[in-house]
């Protein structure tokens, strides 16, 4: 495969192997003895569009299924009836080469799904024991103008995942996609899939415009709270959003887009007192990095002190509710002055609330070393963030990898 470059010297690549690409990650793993550390990745991805034909077989609505079969068969040109497209080039115009090269990677034809093979390759290279796997193009499904398509696609995807993929390897789990534009369908999703093996929670892609405080969602939150399943808000972006449409570089729309939707939903969640209504429902904010959290904490606290009459359910500061929430680390902003990051960790109570994630194979992925190498964390904090916090959040059985697992710093699993 030739990758066009700026020069006459195009890059020619004959083969691609994740294991080779990540050989320096494996060296980091060995140098830090990460094989001895429980590492749970709360946010990684696969490309479910590569299995679209299989997923469509699970669509229950016959009309939508027929449309999907046409699309996944001969194709319908540039349009997709099922997953909305959005402008973007996360691969930095080919510079992050695993995007164009992934199709060259060979996997064994042994009955195990290709996505399992690919996932285990990078997991083993990094020293990751368990993952919560998310889709990729479906992160834009919440922008589909037809709610029934979001319902049909997400339900088919979840069924395919639960029946075909997750049973193949216990190291791969998922927080299933909720079709949030249809509250009733979201409720049914939790009810029907909440107790399936490998389902460690549910997720809402935050790039959407339905408010989390809508009464229509309350029974879903209550059900999840009763089932002990965490709710994740997973960030993405929408360059067609009127606000982000005023940005002219992907850098900006990514930096802002992956934070503002989560920030908006988080503010709504806290100020409407949902933590008071669902005190045992665990909420995690995924793929917005960390820098937005101190910003939102300070903004909400400052306004709340002047306008508490607009948030009468609250019994403590907004930032204190946010300290009870969970956060995924990636893409972790690493300022040259690490004091800034240390203060962020302190503000979010990272030792108990932060969960490392890689986001692999996406362009701004993080390795476990971003946490393990931080000079201001002790060994217990590192191990909590890399795995223990997620183990507790997901109530994850890790005996398959660590038969005699003991939480860092003492205590029982």
């Amino acid at each position, binding site marked *: 495969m030739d*990758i066009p*470059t*700026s*020069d*006459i*010297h195009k*890059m020619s690549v004959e083969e691609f192997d994740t294991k080779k*690409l990540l*050989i*320096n*990650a494996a*060296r*980091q793993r060995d140098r830090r003895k990460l094989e001895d550390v429980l590492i749970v990745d709360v946010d990684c991805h696969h490309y479910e569009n590569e299995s679209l034909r299989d997923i469509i077989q699970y669509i229950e609505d016959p009309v939508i299924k027929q449309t999907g079969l046409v699309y996944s068969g001969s194709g319908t040109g540039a349009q997709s009836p099922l997953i909305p497209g959005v402008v973007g080039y996360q691969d*930095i115009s*080919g*510079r*992050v*080469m*695993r995007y164009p090269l992934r199709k060259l990677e060979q996997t064994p034809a042994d009955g195990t799904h290709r996505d399992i093979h690919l996932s285990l390759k990078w997991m083993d290279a990094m020293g990751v024991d368990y993952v919560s796997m998310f889709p990729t193009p479906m992160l834009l499904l919440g922008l589909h103008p037809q709610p029934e398509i979001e319902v049909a696609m997400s339900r088919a995807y979840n069924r395919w995942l639960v029946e075909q993929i997750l049973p193949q390897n216990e190291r791969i789990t998922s927080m299933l996609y909720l079709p949030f534009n249809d509250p009733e369908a979201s409720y049914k999703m939790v009810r029907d899939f909440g107790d399936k093996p490998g389902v460690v929670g549910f997720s809402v892609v935050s790039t959407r415009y339905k408010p989390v405080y809508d009464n229509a969602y309350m029974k879903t939150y209550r059900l999840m709270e009763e089932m002990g399943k965490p709710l994740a808000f997973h960030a993405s972006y929408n360059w067609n959003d009127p606000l982000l449409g005023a940005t002219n570089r992907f850098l900006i729309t990514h930096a802002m887009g992956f934070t503002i939707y989560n920030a908006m939903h988080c503010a709504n969640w806290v100020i409407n007192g949902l933590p008071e209504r669902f005190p045992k429902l665990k909420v995690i904010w995924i793929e917005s990095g960390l820098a937005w959290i101190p910003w939102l904490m300070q903004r909400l606290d400052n306004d709340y002190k002047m306008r508490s009459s607009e948030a009468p359910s609250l019994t403590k500061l907004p930032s204190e509710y946010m300290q009870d929430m969970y956060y995924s680390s990636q893409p972790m902003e690493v300022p*040259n002055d690490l004091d800034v990051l240390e203060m962020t960790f302190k503000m979010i109570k990272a030792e108990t609330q932060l969960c490392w994630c890689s986001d692999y194979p996406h*362009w*701004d*992925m*993080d*390795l476990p*070393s*971003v946490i393990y190498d931080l000079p201001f964390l002790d060994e217990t904090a590192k191990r909590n963030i890399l795995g223990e916090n997620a183990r507790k959040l997901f109530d994850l059985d890790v005996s398959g990898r660590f038969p005699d697992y003991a939480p860092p710093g003492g205590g029982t699993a």
Partner: protein
Amino acid sequence: MAREIFVAKSDDLSDGERKIVPNGNSEIGVYRVKGRLYAYQNLCAHQGGPACEGLLMAKVEEVIAEDKTYQGMRFNHDEMHIVCPWHGWEYDLETGVMVADRTFRLRKYDVVEKEDGIYVLA
């Protein structure tokens, strides 16, 4: 005293090409660009990616007219960048300095060309 690591015979590293050679538990990327040889450790200063296995790209510049209006972008082929394939960090081929934050750099090695081939001094 620096150890000489054989890279390639001169004819086997054409202009615009790159070769990765092992160096203990790491590698060194050796480039020949516009007649000159460069060698850097295959280790990105960011998260440790194999920087030398990525693309070699010309610097991208904005074209700003005298009236300060934006006129587009162009490649500046006088400044080539080594691009780490993990995350896209870019390094100036001439110096190994990271172009977006000059406090970072690739480790640079001397490289010599002899009658029987190209060597890195590691």
